[in-house]
């Protein structure tokens, strides 16, 4: 299946099938995808599913203003204009979720960096406390440090609170 292999090596099988179903591919691409769809039952089912979803979307009822709403529409617009209620133009910024959807690799890299930072910070703190004894820097009170082969437990009290925090470090290989 050379054609199927071509689609998979491009890594855009899903995107191309969706675009093919919507008739959005350039003629050359369309012909190549069509030749794949002819011999690939799974691809054919996917294309059909996309087409039915699109048809269902286009079949959603349009909504219209009621007679009362239509009659009151322009007077309300005029009232807002006269009141100077025009909204201050605000730049529409993409939400975090959309940025993550649009840039999945960036999101993964960010998450990985955050995890590395957290691990580094934790290790450096433990080492610092181990060297300086209690109380630790910045007013952190180290209540106990139990180091064992399998499990180590650190109990400390952040400054300005009565909260006691317990960190348990487990050896996951045991």
């Amino acid at each position, binding site marked *: 299946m050379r054609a199927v292999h071509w689609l998979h090596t491009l890594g855009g099988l*899903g*995107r191309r099938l*969706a*675009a093919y179903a*919507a008739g*959005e591919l350039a003629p050359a691409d369309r012909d190549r995808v069509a030749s794949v769809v002819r011999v690939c039952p799974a691809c054919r089912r996917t294309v*059909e*599913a*996309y087409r*039915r*979803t*699109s*048809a*269902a*979307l*286009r*079949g*959603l*009822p*349009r*909504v*219209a*203003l*009621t007679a009362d*709403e*239509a009659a009151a*529409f*322009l007077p*309300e*617009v*005029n009232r*807002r*204009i006269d009141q100077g*209620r*025009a*909204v201050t*133009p*605000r730049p*529409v910024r*993409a*939400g975090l*979720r*959309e940025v993550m*959807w*649009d840039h999945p690799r960036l999101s993964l890299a960010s998450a990985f960096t955050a995890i590395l930072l957290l691990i580094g910070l934790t290790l450096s703190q433990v080492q610092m406390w181990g060297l300086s004894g209690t109380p630790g820097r910045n007013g952190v009170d180290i209540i106990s440090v139990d180091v064992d082969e399998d499990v180590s437990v650190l109990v400390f009290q952040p400054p300005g609170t009565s909260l006691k925090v317990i960190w348990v470090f487990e050896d996951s290989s045991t």
Partner: protein
Amino acid sequence: MPGPEGRADDRTLVEQAARGDREAFGALVQRHQDRIFNLAYQVVRNREDALDVAQEAFVKAFASLSRFKGEASFTTWMHRIVVNLAIDCLRRRRRGEPAAYDDRLAIPEDAGQNLAAPDDPETALETQQVRTLLSRGIETLPPAHRAVLVLREIEGLSYEEIARAVGCNLGTVMSRLFYARRKLQKVLQPNLDDLR
């Protein structure tokens, strides 16, 4: 310049309105209010919010008429304003609970054209179920993805027009469209056979 039916075209009305002619602006509003309301509704999926967004869009358009250069049609320009306001509205609303979709509030203009015949109760019920699923699926999409999907699938805009309307590049339009379509397809998967 009057159009073929004796009505002034949009460009003429925009020019007059930009000079402060409120009657010309009123004519523009009345000509486009239904379409703008429908577009707002398809994105925000709530009648009250859609009405507010549509009216605010015209208020904003009036304030910006002097900046309308006429490179695009008035409709395309309005698309941009409405979609941005609708996205903004959704983001504000998402800080609280999303409004429930109430299909009873939707008034079909073209019922029967694309959908099941109303005299077939079983098919009508299935169609209603699919619509409800679809609406819920749309509501789960992030605002910008929802807007791109509506502009493409319901309004029939080209990629370029969508990119201009939502202020992003073509690649982002394609990416958002793909994710939105895939998500909806998954939502509808168990009911796809009913759409034959």
